[in-house]
């Protein structure tokens, strides 16, 4: 079965994880994505995307630190896996190929 490319939100989440040093917790990721896009990012969507990425093997996760959180619950930390990194690079190359030469077209128009 053919492997599908990364979705837009998947890409954004992986990039946010990468910016945080390849490992992080979802709330700072949401904050980072909002700061960069200037739009509200749905926490619910990020929650789901992270778990889907984990199902696909692009990230992994572990639970940590029940005592020091505001809610008193454990947090799940996600880590970018090698496959995830590879897929990000692939996505970037694809985007560059798609955009290649567009500037000259625009200038003509």
């Amino acid at each position, binding site marked *: 079965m053919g492997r599908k490319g990364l979705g837009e939100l998947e890409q954004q989440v992986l990039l946010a994880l990468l910016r945080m040093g390849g490992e992080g*917790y*979802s*709330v700072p990721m*949401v*904050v980072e994505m909002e700061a960069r896009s200037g739009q*509200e990012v*749905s*926490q*619910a*969507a990020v*929650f*789901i*995307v992270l*778990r*889907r990425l984990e*199902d696909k093997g692009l990230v992994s996760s572990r639970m940590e630190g029940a005592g020091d*959180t*505001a*809610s008193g*619950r*454990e*947090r*799940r930390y996600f880590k970018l896996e090698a496959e995830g990194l590879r897929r990000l690079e692939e996505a970037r190359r694809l985007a560059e190929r798609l955009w290649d030469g567009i500037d000259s077209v625009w200038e003509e128009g």
Partner: protein
Amino acid sequence: MTRRPPATPHWIDWLMRRLLTSADVEEALGELHDLWVHVEATAGVVEADRRYLRELRRYPLRLVGGRIRRARPPEVGPALRSVARNIRGLARTPVLTSSIVLTVGLGLGGCTAIFAVADVLFFRPLPYPDADRLVWIHTESPPNRFNFSVVDFQALEAQQTRFSRVAAVQALSGTFVDEDVSERVSVWRITPGFFELLGIVPAVGRTAGSREAASGGPRTALVTAAFATTRLGVPPDDLAGALGTSIEVDDVSYEVIGVLPERSGPLGARTQVFATQQFQAPERRGPFFQIVLGRLADGVETAAAADELRAINRRIFPLWRSSYQDERATWAVVPLGELVHGNVDGLVVLLAASVGLLLLLATTNAASLLLTRVRSRRRELAVRIALGASRARVVGHLAAESALLALAGGLVGVLLAWGLAAVMPIVAGSYIPRLDEVSLGGRTLAFTALIAASSWLLFGLVSSVRGSPDAGLSGLRDGGRSATEGAPTQRVQRLLVAVQIAVAVPLLAASGLIATSMRNLQSAEPGFEVDGLLSLRVSLAAARYPDAEQRQGLWWNVEERLASLPGVLSVGVSDSRPPIEAYNYNNYDLEDRPTPVGENQPVACWISADASYLETLGVPLLEGRSLTRDDEYPDAPPVIVVDETWARRHFPGESAIGRRLREGGATSGPWTTVVGVVGDVTYAGFGGETGGTVYAPWTGLTQPFVVVRAAGDPVTLLASIRQELRALDPTAPVTDVATGEALISSSLAEPRHLTVLLIALSALALGLAVIGVYGVTAHAVQGRRGDIAVRLALGGTPRRVLGMVVRSTMAISLAGMLAGVLAARAFTPLLGGMVYRVDPRDPATLAAVVVVLAVVSLAACCLPAWRAVRSDPATVLRQD
């Protein structure tokens, strides 16, 4: 104090816990909490709370759309995926989708509910063991069927050999007295073997034996479980506690020997007490109050049993000739269902036909709407075909989509039918029997599936096959410009609209007829003055007043005391009250017009009324004199007063005064003389036939109606009337209180229900037909807007262009109406017997329906056409 995020709404929590494992729910809430802390620190608590709730609400939606459930394998089957895709597709056009699902669901629900009723009445046997062996034995004297007398039953019981059992029952009501409280209850007097015949075994206790049926034997009764718990105070789990209790009905004590099970069938379903009958030795053949049931013996054919019945009747006829001469009347036997069901077939057929038409209309409408939808997606579908999807696949996709609609409609229908099944016994239980047996069983659900599938075939396949592009390129070429597009599709759509109109006509005609009938009923002359009338029933315990003279005196007393109350103009007493409560019909032989040998004696409604009854009702005296108190003495010469119908029936163009007759088929005894003729009063319901009414002098019965004419509002008198009656006999319950208006209104309950139902159905039909006409015109105009613009640009007047568009749609409407008129000719006769003073084929109603439909469809097609004409041709042409 540490702040906390708002509480999670219950419904979100409920949904999340169904979509996620509980560990995941905890994680999600933990993350939201952390987000809340972050937002609170940066934007304040108000914003943090808002964001928190917003995110919470997103969770269920995202979880459904994002298809993760960690416990569930991430890969769903392709079939399921395509269903999900179809659902998403339909959800993009919510108005269209919901209108199809609801209208088709309504049609399916109505059909399902009526089928469930018909299933019970026509196909399911009565809920008794071996019910096909159960019969109703009666006297057949066409067009009437009479019950048996005690003489008949005793002869039958002694001589018959074809039945394993016969039983008789007399349906009465009685006054149940419990300490100080007394009330009327339905009491059936049964012969031993009644329950054995039906196969009903008491929940506790036993049934009566022959010793208890013998005159002078111990008085025994069985009661229902409901009666035992509510009236005798026995706990439901210890019904045996009721056994041996003594109950007082009409001042006679009965020992309770058994309690019936919770459900014991439709016969006597509203009866609480089944007392054992004790026959006295009869002096004459009548009266005929015994309902006789039989269970055919094993291996005996109905025909053989009928032969024997006729033979027994012939044998006893000579013995009782002095009190019964109807030689042509025979004994006959029909399935017990005919007794239980009565005359309800016509109503059920009418309802079935109505909802069937509605379903057809809803289905056609759905086909038309879907066709429009598919056409608007032509480009998308053409792209799919161009990209390699086969046409079959596109058709399959469309068919799957419509199958989902049919399925959803089916679900709505089943839900609706389920609701109707629960409501029907309450609303219509009084005139449609066995509604409590209606359930959505396997056969009914299979029927629903079948009609849902048929309607899917109609709307799904028409739209997907006719709507999908033939070849990829043509669809692409047409693209947004649809001037040349889909001529065959247009034809199909026009045909669908014609069908919708054609189906709407009979429904509208039926509702027009029933509405006219209802208006006639409401304005019908009941024959008495409605305003200021109050009536009620007083029930004396027969055992307390054994002497007729004593009762007579009591009623005179009642009249005098009530008449002396301030505000009361007059008071009367009778065993009947208009417009539907008269139960006694008598046969008689006229002195001047003796019944020829071999013919049935005339029968008329026979009312026992006191001297002031007719005056209190406000019935005009037309000829002769009214009844007087002197007529009520036992030694007074027998006289009667008759109504106009009776006088005209027997003595057209002559005076009925002074004519004489003998009652009840007696050949000897005194003649009864007609002394007066009064106006007609309705006793058998509006439209009911009584063959005229005879008023005989009051004989002091125990459970009469008392009628009171008040100067003002009669309701204000009720308290003082009750008080007077209580003073006379505190144990006599006062029931069935009704003003004149209430009497009329309650007699119209059944036609009113039917009227409301048919008008609602036809309003829906009209609405759907209008949507259809509007849709097809709008689409045609949309397709021809370039054409219209060119005509307008070239100087065509808007009027002419408008006329052109409207003409083509109206042609379809008119064709539909023509077909509809023919359909209505077949449909409206189903109303026969249910409409009052209207011909079910009334051409005026049909004409009015056609005019209404023409006007409405003209409006529906003018609107889009007018809009097209008003648009600026230049703009339209530029767009294209």
